[in-house]
């Protein structure tokens, strides 16, 4: 093996139960002390490869070397012992435990018979200081922000003495400031001798952070490159196999009448914490209203309040002049609301059911799928396949379950379902989170199409470039309140938004009030 390769995967093949070939003769070599990017479309096999390196999956074929020695991990415990640490795409934390407890889990302080919690808290604080990754040691994980959970994941790896860190899409949930902060810390880690594998769909990040990159497509290695040798377009092409563009072409704004408005929404959760604090705004035909904000500042509750799954303590929701306050979810749908939720697997689909079942969730009770009073499977099949094809979902057949699709394809299915409903108000909550450039491009284009068709669109996104490139108007939320109202989107930067989001800057009452009109 090549000198200086701290980690190497050779001819790795992985076949999942069910016969999915996720990796096919994949090669990866990572040099000591570098930040190595791994990129590829959804389902290219990145996570799978990493899970094998980390001992969570066994390769069907192939070899893995750490420090030049072949290893056979049977569990992540083995990988941890060998100096690896992994930050998973989906957080690997126990929500009911505290940050400190999560940190030490599996490598507890104190004796087996008396876990030393005090010490755990101390260690957490100390590590947090040392690596400048701020976390609240004694908070429960279910109560902390996503950014903090992200940091906790990294701390967990460091606490276990990892000198090779695998980060699977760590920035998907972070604000630009947070991302920047994270990058600084990663660079610090690199300087202190750590090796990092970095997975991201955001190519600008990859360019900014990494030294080399390996590209995967369809489970195969497309090659390893010096970052400086490729520009973003070339990377996209290698990943997707064609040219992609994320620059959105969108027509000049041409708003119609006000379609939708909310007024003075108030909501407190079961722990007595205020989540929505007198939120008011309205949206016009053909307008995309973007909501920016750090996760957990009331955006989810706002969406839920509009969709109708949340019982508000006060406020009003109106669509097309109709008062929907207190109306059921169904009633609101029928009034013309569509919704792409932030967590596609949890709120947007029934993963264990078929694509067909998932495709018809908005229209299942209507006459268009029935014949002689019963749901007609031929019609369902036709309906589902039409949406799947129209929205370019990659699938085998419409009877397979949603859980067998990759995330990006699930998202396309959901977007297809919601757009096909032809709503008056379209709510998009994190529509492109964690999906690949090809799918992002597609979905954004579709959103702009809907705008052209004079729909009112509410776009909630943590991806500020998305907010800035799509929205006609932007509201920023902080601790349940609207703190910023931006109409001049063209002349606003991500950093400007960041200041509102962090609560540093706040617009005047009048300006914020301007977001609402009857």
């Amino acid at each position, binding site marked *: 093996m090549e000198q200086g390769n701290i980690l190497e995967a050779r001819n790795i093949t992985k076949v999942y*139960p*069910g016969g999915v070939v996720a990796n096919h003769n994949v090669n990866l070599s990572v040099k000591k002390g570098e930040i190595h990017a791994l990129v590829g479309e959804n389902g290219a096999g990145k996570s799978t490869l990493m899970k094998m390196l980390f001992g969570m999956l066994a390769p069907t074929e192939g070899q893995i070397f750490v420090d030049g020695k072949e290893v056979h991990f049977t569990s992540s415990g083995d990988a941890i012992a060998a100096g690896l640490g992994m930050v998973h795409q989906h957080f690997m934390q126990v929500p009911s435990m505290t940050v400190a407890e999560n940190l030490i889990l599996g490598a507890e302080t104190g004796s087996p018979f008396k876990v030393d919690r005090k010490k755990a808290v101390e260690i957490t604080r100390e590590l947090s200081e040392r690596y400048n990754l701020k976390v609240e040691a004694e908070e429960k994980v279910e109560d902390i922000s996503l950014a903090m959970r992200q940091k906790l994941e990294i701390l967990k790896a460091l606490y276990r003495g990892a000198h090779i860190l695998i980060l699977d899409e760590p920035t998907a949930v972070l604000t630009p400031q947070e991302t920047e902060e994270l990058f600084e810390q990663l660079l610090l880690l690199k300087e202190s001798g750590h090796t990092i594998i970095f997975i991201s769909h955001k190519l600008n990040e990859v360019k900014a952070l990494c030294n080399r990159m390996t590209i995967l497509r369809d489970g195969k290695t497309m090659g390893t490159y010096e970052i400086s040798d490729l520009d973003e377009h070339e990377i996209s092409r290698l990943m997707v196999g064609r040219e992609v563009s994320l620059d959105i072409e969108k027509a000049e704004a041409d708003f119609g009448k006000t379609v939708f408005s909310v007024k003075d929404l108030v909501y407190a959760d079961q722990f007595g914490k205020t989540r929505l604090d007198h939120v008011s705004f309205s949206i016009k035909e053909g307008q995309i209203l973007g909501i920016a904000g750090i996760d957990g500042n009331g955006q989810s509750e706002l969406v839920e309040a509009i969709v109708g799954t949340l019982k508000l303590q006060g406020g009003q929701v109106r669509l097309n002049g109709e008062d929907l306050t207190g109306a059921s979810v169904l009633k609101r749908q029928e009034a013309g609301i569509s*919704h792409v939720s932030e967590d596609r697997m949890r709120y947007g689909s029934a993963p264990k059911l078929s694509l067909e079942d998932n495709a018809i969730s908005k229209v299942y009770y209507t006459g268009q799928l029935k014949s002689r009073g019963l749901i007609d*499977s031929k019609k369902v099949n036709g309906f589902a396949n039409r949406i799947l094809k129209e929205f370019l979902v990659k699938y085998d057949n419409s009877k397979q379950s949603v859980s067998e699709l990759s995330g990006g394809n699930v998202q396309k299915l959901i977007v297809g379902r919601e757009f096909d409903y032809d709503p008056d108000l379209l709510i998009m909550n994190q529509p492109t989170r964690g999906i690949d450039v090809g799918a992002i491009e597609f979905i954004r284009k579709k959103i702009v199409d809907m705008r052209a068709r004079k729909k009112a669109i509410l776009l909630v996104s943590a991806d500020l470039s998305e907010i800035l490139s799509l929205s006609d108007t932007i509201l920023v939320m902080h601790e349940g309140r609207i703190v910023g109202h931006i109409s001049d989107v063209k002349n606003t930067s991500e950093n400007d938004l960041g200041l509102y989001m962090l609560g540093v800057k706040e617009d005047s009452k009048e300006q914020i009030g301007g977001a609402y009109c009857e």
Partner: protein
Amino acid sequence: MSKKFTAVRLLCAFGIAFVLTVAIIFGVSEEPVTAIYNLFLGPLQSKRHFFDVFASSVPLIFTGLALGLVFKSGNFSMIADACLYTGAVVTAALAIKTALPAGLHPAVIMLLAAVVGGIIGSIPALLKVYFHTNELVTSLMFNYVFFYLGIYTVTKFLADRAAGTFASLKYQPTASLGSLISGTKFHAGYLIAIAVVILLYLLVYKTKFGYEIRISGSNPEFAKYSGINTSRVIILTQVIAGAVAGLGGSVEQMAMYQRFNWQDSPSYAWDGVIIAILSGNNPKNVPLAAFFLAYIRVGADLMSRRSDVQNELVSIIQAVLILFVTAERFMAGWKQRQEAKKALGGEA
């Protein structure tokens, strides 16, 4: 691939269960061949025994359907037991105390038993929806409550005082679901069971409400976001399931009994769990799963009657069969190697 694998796996599981069973029988029996012959082929020996299997499968079909429906909606209520028992008590009361013409009598009784079953079925669901109680807890407890209530009703109002044991008065002859094939117990109730199977299949897979059940059961959060009133689904599903179980109790009484004499609860609901899981909560598969369980039970009965193998061995054998037949990952390693071979072969 997957279908073929399931077949191979099932065959092997049966194989293992068979070998184990045979080994146990050889270990304890002086006449193992007789025992084994009766266990596996006994039910095929005569028309009467063969149709006994169908008759025995009727309550299993009803509870299997009821439990399957409840599971499908993502709940775990065992209230079917109380529904079935009380449905039987209601049947007894009506079969003794009312007089109606032959065809109508069973129909009215079944309807009322189903209604009562439905009402009882709704109780744990209502408690769950309104007070956030766990339906498994309340249903298990309510099963006792309704059992004792049933016993009280029968002792107080329906008992045959001349009987030397716990038994109600005799049912009116009009309230009988007689045998359809003479000399066997194959009764009209089986056809009713099959009709319910078809209805439930249509309900679950072909109607709006069925879709709501499946979505709510598979992912309640998604159901909520899709505008489905999940509370309504929970309640209505358990009402339907309760009605099916109540109907089952009614059918069983009118077809197989002439008096009410369930001094102990027959606990068909636990059997229902087995059937529901064996059938993958799909009504379509329920009759087959019920037939399987009834077959091994009738076979085991015959074995214990005709050979020296003790009655109790039956439960051991049943356990072995159920354990292996339902072991999902049994032979999974083999399956995966086959799949890997095929997938990679296909690519190369």
